[in-house]
């Protein structure tokens, strides 16, 4: 096992949504860094994959984007959650929790026969 993990398929979208929910509007770079920080630097994001994922979320109507100015006075595109996005975070989080809980039962050391 490497020191840093790649992002599992399908989880990047949820991570991005969740990050946007807690942090408010963010630009792409900021979002990527924030995801890495939240993972305790355990995840190594290929930044290139983030943008198609964001585009997909935007096409699905969960986030919207607009151009703004960054903290360093740089023009950047900011992403923020829409109402549908907020609902989606809750729904996806619940599903994910359920999935991990189920998986956890399988992975837990066998207690009894």
């Amino acid at each position: 096992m490497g020191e840093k993990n790649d992002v599992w398929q399908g989880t990047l979208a949820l991570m991005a949504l969740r990050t946007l929910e807690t942090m408010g509007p963010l630009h792409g770079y900021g979002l990527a860094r924030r995801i890495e920080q939240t993972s305790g630097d355990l995840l190594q994001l290929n930044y290139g994959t983030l943008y198609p994922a964001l585009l997909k979320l935007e096409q699905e109507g969960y986030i919207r984007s607009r151009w703004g100015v960054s903290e360093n006075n740089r023009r950047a595109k900011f992403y923020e959650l829409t109402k549908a996005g907020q609902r989606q975070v809750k729904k996806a989080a619940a599903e994910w929790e359920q999935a991990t809980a189920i998986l956890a039962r399988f992975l837990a050391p066998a207690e009894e026969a």
Partner: protein
Amino acid sequence: MRQLRALWIRLRGLIGARRDEDDFAAELESHVAMHTEDGIRTGLSPTEARRQALIRLGGAEQTRQAYRERHTLPWLENSLRDVRYALRQLRKSPGFALLAIVTLALGVGANTAIFTVIESVLMRPLPYAHADRLLYIGPKIDTPGFYKTSWLNYRDIRSQSRLLKDVAGYSEDLSVVESADGPQNVVAPHITPSLFSMLGTRPLLGRAFTEAEGVTGGPSVVMLSEELWRQNFHADRNIVGRPVKVGGTLHTVVGVMPASFQFPDEMGPDIRKGIWLPLQPSQEMLTERGYQFFSIVGELAPGVTRAQAQQELDAIAAHISGATTITKNTNLFRATPYQELLTGSVRPVLYALFAAVALVLLIACANVSHLMIARCLGRQQEFAVRSALGAGRWRLARQMLWEGMLLSLLGCGAGVILAQLALRLVRKLPDGTIPSADSIGLHWTVVLALAAIAIVTTVLSSLLPALLVARSDPQAALQAASRGVGPRTVSGKLTGWLVMGEVALSTLLLVGTGLLFHTLWNLEESQLGFDTDRVTTFSATPEDAAGFSNMAVSDETQGAPASVATLVYQPVLERIRHTPGVQSAALITALPLTGFDLKSSFEILGQAKDPANEAQARVSAVSSDYARAMGTPVLRGRMIGDEDVSTAPFVTVINQAFEKKYFAGKDPVGKQLNLGGKDTGMIKPYTIIGVLADQVDNKVGSPAIPLILLPQQQIPTTSLFYQALLKTTVSFVVKTGAEIPVAAEMQSVFHQAAPGFALDDFQTMRSLVDKNTFSHKLGLYLVALFAGLAVAMVIAGLYGVLSQFVSYRRHEIGVRMALGASRSSVARLVLRQGAMLIGAGLVAGLLLALAAGRLIKGFLYHVQPLDLWTYLFAVLLLTCVGLIATLIPARRASSIEPMRALRAE
């Protein structure tokens, strides 16, 4: 829903792709810039920081591509690119594209249009509820026809039949209707009330006849046709319930029938402005089984076959003749589908048509396929290059697929437009040119089926060479030496089969076309039996026209009333003959092609009667001068003249068909005919004094029916024939010295001599003939057009295929010549190969044509399916086309400079 929304946005993304890409580039740039700044902050050099940022991004170009793919729909974009490429390719070779599209358009469009028109001209499906189950029931006579029977037979069949859902009947008649505009001759069939419910046509106004109106002594009521109602009663919506004078007595109008109702259809187009009267059986009808002026139609009950109904009718016939089984003396009935009797059996024609449609389509597809294949082979090198550059097989095939698809879609689209335009033109033709042209609609099923076949073949033929090319090793194709296409390669064999197939198909079509053309020619040249030049005809109807249904044999022979022939027609004819410009004039009751027709049974005195086959002939009254006015030759004896008055010995003239049928080889002059004796009131027999050449009767092109001509003054006024022939609508023929209109003079003659007569139907004999032959001729012209179209396509295709075949071998020929082959031997080689292919194709085609000839037999007139001239013509034409198509390229091949052919291609 989310997916749909995303798809929609991606589809939209296809359009604004450029702007969005700039937007994304800016976003990426800002991302990299921020990342670089962070890197610098951690102590990296600006260059190193930027490098790291780009590495973490995973490559700017790759990211951009991933983004692009997500942004739009890549497969759609690729397809669009293919389509654009295919369009460009087609634009680059407009000749090829145009040829393919036109071929397909003709194959699909013209094909459908012609098919649709022919079908509606030939089939003329009857607009009745169960037209397919409608039977005509008449006495069993060797040739099918609308033979009449008696009302008593109708009554018995109706009461005894279980397999017929209903039985109805009618008797044909003529009458005069008086409106504010004056008297009008009309056909006036008497019909049983049950007919309306059986045919299922609703009246436009009012109601149909009730059962109570269809009995002896029932009320005087009448139903009008839409056309008569519009023309003579000014479409008066209050006509129902009003009295109208019909045949001199007042009748109450109970209803108006729509124009689509033209029953009985065998009475011809006159029924369109006719009237219908309820059948109220007369005393003769109720008592005389020999009183045969009645037509019966029956509707098969659901699930019953014609054979079953026929069996039942045989049993009823036996029952009527007082026996339990059929004996020699049983007068049998025959049930024939009404439609078949009316239009002849159309099934073989329909099959022939389908075959022709299929053939034309096949040829169109073969032509297009060949075009595609030839094009692909020409582009072999291009494919090899692209394949070498890494294009996948599927990618190449897909591109060809799009080209084929595009071509076939364009072709079929053009075809549908063509068909629509053609049908619009047909509808614009003057009224009556094509029967019920307004109702001819495009056969969408036919169009779509043809288009589907065309698309599949085109796409397949575009795909096949692409796969062939893709499968082959690009290396080989890239090397100049292996560029030729020899006869033994896959593509060479394919082309060979195509040549043979096209020759076979063309043979089949040429033979078919030849047979039809020959028929057309025969029809054009068919013997009318009379001159049409400067002959005008018109009809006259006495005010008190009797009508067949009220006929009765009068018992008094003494003090019989004077004949209208002597009182009116003879003096009128005298006056007409003295009118300036008139050369001769005559009266005839059964003028050829008018549909006025009376058939009667007869006996030849001294000849045994054949009980199984009752002798029947058309009977017509005629005045003197008829043969002269019509220009028909008298073959034996003399024609009826002015001396044959009522007091002179009774004489008759028969036609050639009569002589052939009943006096085979013997001289009929002097023999005597008995026309029914007491039953009909024709007590005295008639002595044959002459034989007149055959004239066409009701249809140009059908064989003449035996005819008995009686002097108009020798028909006893007490007989049935007097009322059926003379006391009703009669025709006059007037031969003039020059092309002059005679209507006004004739009107004035009648006005002076016989004011009560209604004159109508003024027309020249020529127009009568033209009208009669029109639908048949039109059908044939259309079929010929059809075949001509196909033949033109075949010739073009054949030439293309053969010349292409030779040009594939340019390289090989160059090698041969470089190795020492002479020019003539090269030409021979090419010719031999072409001849072999053509020969094989011809043989296959002739065999096919022999088999198919039987199909169109029913459509031929005086032409055998094995017509030698047609076959010779087809073989000669194809050999010529084939040879020319090989000779030109053979010459070109033999003039090839070997070095040039080897070096460059």
